[in-house]
């Protein structure tokens, strides 16, 4: 399938008005990936030569001007995905105080690509076999693993690693034609020992790296029921390394002991997410669902590279679907996760806009570059320059914000309330924390979410008696409010 010829600017992933510095930076970045000494996939050398040529032309102002004259203004870039931007209001207002703007970015697999076979998997299940897993939990995990093995397509690669304070490769990364022996190996896993996540993660990485292939979905699923001690930093460093190789991590915590904050950070570093499994009976269902989602991946490693703009502050980012999760904001490159074939990826951004940014008629909110990697396409997808911008007017508009924004925020407000309450409680401000939880429960009631509201009120009682939040309640509240994003609204919004 011939890709349409793109112009020099889109080859470098910069806008037409990019500065010389931008162009140089984009070139260096592309060169690092595509240089013949480094690249792996066929065709990347050709792509590098294209980038080289683009840079040579654009880096020279005289040649650039000549080239610009040949460009037709409406040239549209042919993107391998569809995108939609929804703003909370049509324009910003000239104000002497800060103002808020919410923006939803929606990324979707184009229709014609929804039916192409999804890329083959290269997945390692890293499972906790520590003593605490004994009994129902272990049985359920084993039965889920066997089920996954049976569901594999011939082209999929699976490995299984079990860890306690050391790791053992139960099934090395391979295709699985003869399943009876592999199934027997899974059945033989016996629980014993403590929990050292790094051991498991490291062994899992080795397995995935053995058959690592850009044309596959390379992924690690980490299942644990406990806390890891002392090796968190090593785990996070490993996660960053995995991310460079485009290997995602999904964390799944069983029961109440595990460290959800750590697992969240670990997974979001790779654009993945964590999930909470309250009851052992749910292990199988959730694990199989995760596998289904992996087999549906169209694009991976969706990264929005943001540039700092004067007076614009991104204060919060949250993925609304497919896997509701906060987006890590510790670096300018925001990892948005994956784009599935049948569900769009939706992220909401909250911006605080300072008066300095609304001085002119047009306020630039985001000047970013969107990068994705699509396993089914042989050549790397060129980065796409994306802008959020709003015109500035003197008077505030009175339009009702779009339903998508209202619906998303009515849930996000609940999630953030529990985030705040838990933070207060962790810092010992029990009173403030419980008050927030009570407000949260009241809000849930007005939205018709009775059972979650009840869970919260029970936890409030617990906090008042025990002077602290229970591990179980804390996770139920966090993942319960996250699950709201996927549920249809119990009460309709009227507009």
């Amino acid at each position: 399938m011939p890709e349409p010829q793109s112009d020099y600017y889109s080859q470098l992933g910069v806008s037409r008005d990019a500065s010389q510095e931008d162009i140089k930076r984009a070139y260096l970045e592309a060169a690092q990936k595509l240089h013949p000494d480094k690249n792996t996939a066929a065709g990347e050398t050709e792509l590098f030569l294209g980038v080289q040529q683009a840079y040579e032309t654009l880096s020279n102002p005289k040649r650039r001007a000549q080239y610009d004259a040949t460009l037709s203004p409406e040239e549209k870039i042919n993107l391998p995905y569809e995108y939609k931007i929804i703003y909370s209001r049509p324009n910003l207002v000239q104000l002497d105080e800060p103002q808020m703007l919410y923006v939803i970015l929606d990324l979707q697999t184009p229709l014609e690509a929804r039916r192409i076979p999804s890329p083959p998997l290269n997945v390692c299940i890293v499972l906790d076999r520590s003593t605490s897993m004994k009994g129902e939990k272990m049985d359920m995990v084993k039965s889920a693993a066997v089920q996954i093995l049976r569901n594999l397509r011939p082209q999929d690669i699976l490995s299984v690693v079990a860890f306690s304070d050391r790791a053992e490769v139960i099934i090395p990364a391979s295709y699985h034609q003869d399943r009876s022996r592999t199934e027997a190996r899974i059945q033989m896993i016996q629980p014993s020992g403590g929990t050292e996540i790094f051991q498991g993660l490291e062994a899992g990485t080795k397995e995935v790296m053995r058959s690592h292939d850009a044309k596959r979905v390379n992924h690690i699923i980490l299942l644990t029921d406990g806390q890891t001690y002392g090796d968190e930093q090593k785990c996070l460093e490993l996660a960053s390394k995995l991310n460079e190789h485009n290997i995602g991590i999904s964390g799944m915590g069983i029961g109440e002991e595990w460290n959800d904050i750590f697992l969240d950070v670990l997974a979001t570093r790779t654009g993945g997410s964590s999930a909470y499994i309250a009851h052992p009976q749910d292990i199988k269902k959730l694990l199989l669902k995760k596998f289904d989602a992996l087999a549906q991946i169209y694009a991976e490693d969706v990264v929005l590279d943001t540039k700092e703009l004067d007076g614009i502050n991104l204060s919060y980012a949250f993925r609304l679907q497919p896997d509701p999760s906060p987006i890590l904001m510790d670096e300018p490159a925001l990892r948005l996760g994956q784009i599935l074939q049948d569900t769009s990826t939706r992220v909401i951004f909250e911006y605080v806009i300072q008066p300095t940014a609304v001085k002119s008629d047009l306020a630039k909110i985001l000047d970013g570059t969107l990068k994705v990697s699509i396993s089914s396409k042989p050549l790397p997808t060129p980065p796409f320059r994306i802008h959020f911008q709003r015109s500035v007017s003197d008077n505030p508009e009175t339009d009702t914000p779009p339903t998508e924004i209202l619906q998303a925020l009515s849930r996000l407000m609940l999630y953030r309330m529990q985030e705040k309450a838990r933070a207060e409680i962790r810092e010992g401000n029990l009173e403030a924390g419980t008050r927030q939880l009570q407000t949260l429960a009241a809000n849930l009631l007005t939205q018709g979410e009775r059972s979650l509201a009840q869970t919260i009120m029970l936890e409030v009682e617990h906090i008042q008696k025990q002077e602290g939040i229970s591990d179980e309640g804390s996770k139920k509240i966090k993942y319960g409010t996250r699950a709201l994003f996927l549920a249809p609204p119990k009460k309709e919004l009227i507009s």
Partner: protein
Amino acid sequence: MIICSNCQHENVSGTLFCVECGTQLDGVETLTTKSVTQDQITDDLKDKSAAVEPPSSPANSWISLHLMDSGKILPLASRTEFTMGRLSEGQPIMPDIDLTPYQAYASGVSRLHAVIKRESEKTVVMDLGSSNGTYLNGRRLNPHTEEELKHGDVVALGKLKIQVLLRNV
């Protein structure tokens, strides 16, 4: 800046939901806040006559409230504790029994006014720090103090008079 009508928190201009209490902010169409309890109660009321006798159905109701001004009777069941108050748009406060349809606002009923509880042997009423007070047979109750209720007692939330009809007590 937008000041939240519910908690007075100062929100940055353009905010859609108060960051402190979650109330949807002004300048925006509000969410529906019709309460489930209210629906149930009005449904229950449809085929109830205005008799002052303790109603026989539903069978499991342990207490009924006779709203003396309107003559309506609310049989209550399924729980042992009911908060009474007035629902107001866009506010997260949810009384179990919403008295809005009975002129609650004009009668000075607070949003969360009082609670009626069944304890092992007795039924009690407690004022929840309401603005206009709760009266038992004309006597003003101290807030947050439980007082026992007898069949036929008249509780007034502000000016809204309610006769308490206990079943089998």
